[in-house]
């Protein structure tokens, strides 16, 4: 399972996707969009607009009720569990609720993403330390993540998503708990990863991070998507 698309320019292709949660909650209604390789896309919209649902669909945590989702040219509805595992290894996700292990240290939490891809301990150490420095949390390296502030936890979750420099990064409200300085550092990291070739989709309602951007803006409202 790779993210090499047959149409090399597309990394995410969503065609007329609808997601209805039982019994009849319409989270996404007939949405379509494409993200190109190396693109940074802001997915904006108020809370409850369907941003998180869309990211869940892209990581196969949810399945669409209708429509086609292709990641790197692979229809996710046709993927078996092994292929889903491979897909998840190649998508870096920074979850809104962080999904960190509170008893494990910051280092261990970030390293986990690289361990599942069997990276060498040396490579893991080097990359994790680099990320910690970029996000200014080096001094928290050996602190259990449960003892960190929400802002620090958010940065750890972002670092874990970026650890493997994956071809696709999904970030759900990555600056929600951060002050201006930390927000700037996180955005600098995303820009660096994007410059290195990663495609990034940032779901956010924080206007400060996209107000002057030249990147694509997609707006989700009541489960429907519009391009700004």
């Amino acid at each position: 399972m790779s993210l090499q698309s047959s149409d090399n320019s597309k990394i995410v292709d969503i065609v007329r996707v609808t997601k209805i949660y039982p019994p009849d909650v319409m989270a996404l209604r007939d949405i379509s969009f494409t993200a190109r390789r190396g693109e940074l896309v802001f997915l904006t919209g108020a809370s409850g607009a369907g941003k998180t649902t869309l990211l869940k669909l892209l990581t196969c945590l949810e399945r669409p009720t209708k429509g086609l989702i292709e990641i790197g040219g692979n229809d996710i509805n046709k993927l078996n569990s092994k292929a889903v595992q491979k897909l998840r290894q190649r998508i870096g996700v920074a979850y809104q609720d962080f999904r960190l292990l509170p008893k494990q240290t910051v280092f261990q939490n970030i390293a986990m993403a690289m361990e599942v891809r069997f990276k060498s301990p040396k490579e893991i150490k080097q990359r994790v330390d680099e990320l910690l420095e970029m996000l200014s949390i080096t001094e928290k390296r050996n602190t259990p993540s449960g003892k960190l502030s929400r802002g620090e936890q958010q940065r750890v979750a972002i670092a874990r998503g970026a650890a493997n420099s994956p071809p696709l990064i999904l970030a759900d409200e990555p600056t929600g708990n951060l002050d201006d300085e930390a927000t700037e550092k996180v955005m600098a990291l995303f820009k660096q990863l994007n410059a290195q070739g990663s495609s990034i989709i940032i779901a956010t309602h924080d206007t400060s991070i996209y107000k002057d951007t030249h990147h694509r803006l997609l707006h989700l409202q009541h489960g429907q998507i519009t391009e700004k």
Partner: protein
Amino acid sequence: MSIISFIFSQTARNIRHSWSVQLMTTFTVILSVLIFSFFYLIYTNMVEAGSRFGDDLRLIVYLDEAPSAEMKKLYTKKINHFSEVEKITFISPDQAFLRLEKQLGAERGVLKDLNSSFLPYSIDIYPNKELRNLSKIKGFSDYLSSMPGVSKVQYGHSWIERFSYFIKLLRFIVILSGTLLIFTTTFMVSYTIRLTVVARHQELKVLRYLGASNWYIKGPVLVEGFLLGFLGSTLGLAALYVLFQWIKTNFSGPGFMNLFTLSFLPLSHIMLILVVSILLCTSGSMISIRKLLRI
């Protein structure tokens, strides 16, 4: 990091985190293996002793009168007609008297005023191995009793019967303790590992989100089960060996136990117990992880 080194480091971490539960489970496996193999050891020794007694087994056919040469031929023919036997010996009263004297040893004085005339003619029959089970011997004895001129057939009937029932009882105990071993080991190991797995539930969920493969998650748990089985059965068998040596040292010697030459379980049986215990523990851990792989 390779999957092998990951699996072993993760297993070591799991054991460190829940060492007290792991210790209790190992202890349970040790006890289960010890109980089962102890009964099995007794059983194999009894069966061995039984076959040794069987080698000495003979039927004594008492005759009404001295058999003529023709009758001897007829008896031999009739006996072999029922089944091939190892040996047939015709015993005269004089030979029987000498044998009796020999058996009485120092007490032979009680026979001093007697002569051999009170002893009947008899035939000693040493049956073949195929005849040495209780029902066949009984049938053979009945057949011999029906021969002309036979007054009585003796072969330690009640002793053989008791011994045979004892072996049956032992076999039942071995099967029962073996079944209990299977249930306790599988149950205990699967629950212990389930405890450690439940404690790691959040971690396994995160690993799933990060794309960890089934083997990445399953591997350490299976190794844990394997180690529990290996350690538990090895220590259980080691404990049995110590117990065996103690029994041999303290109970071998003149007396009842001297009838038996005690021997430990053969290597092939030891290996079988080890392999079965390891398989049980590994499958126990497999049961506990199966549900979790559906996250």
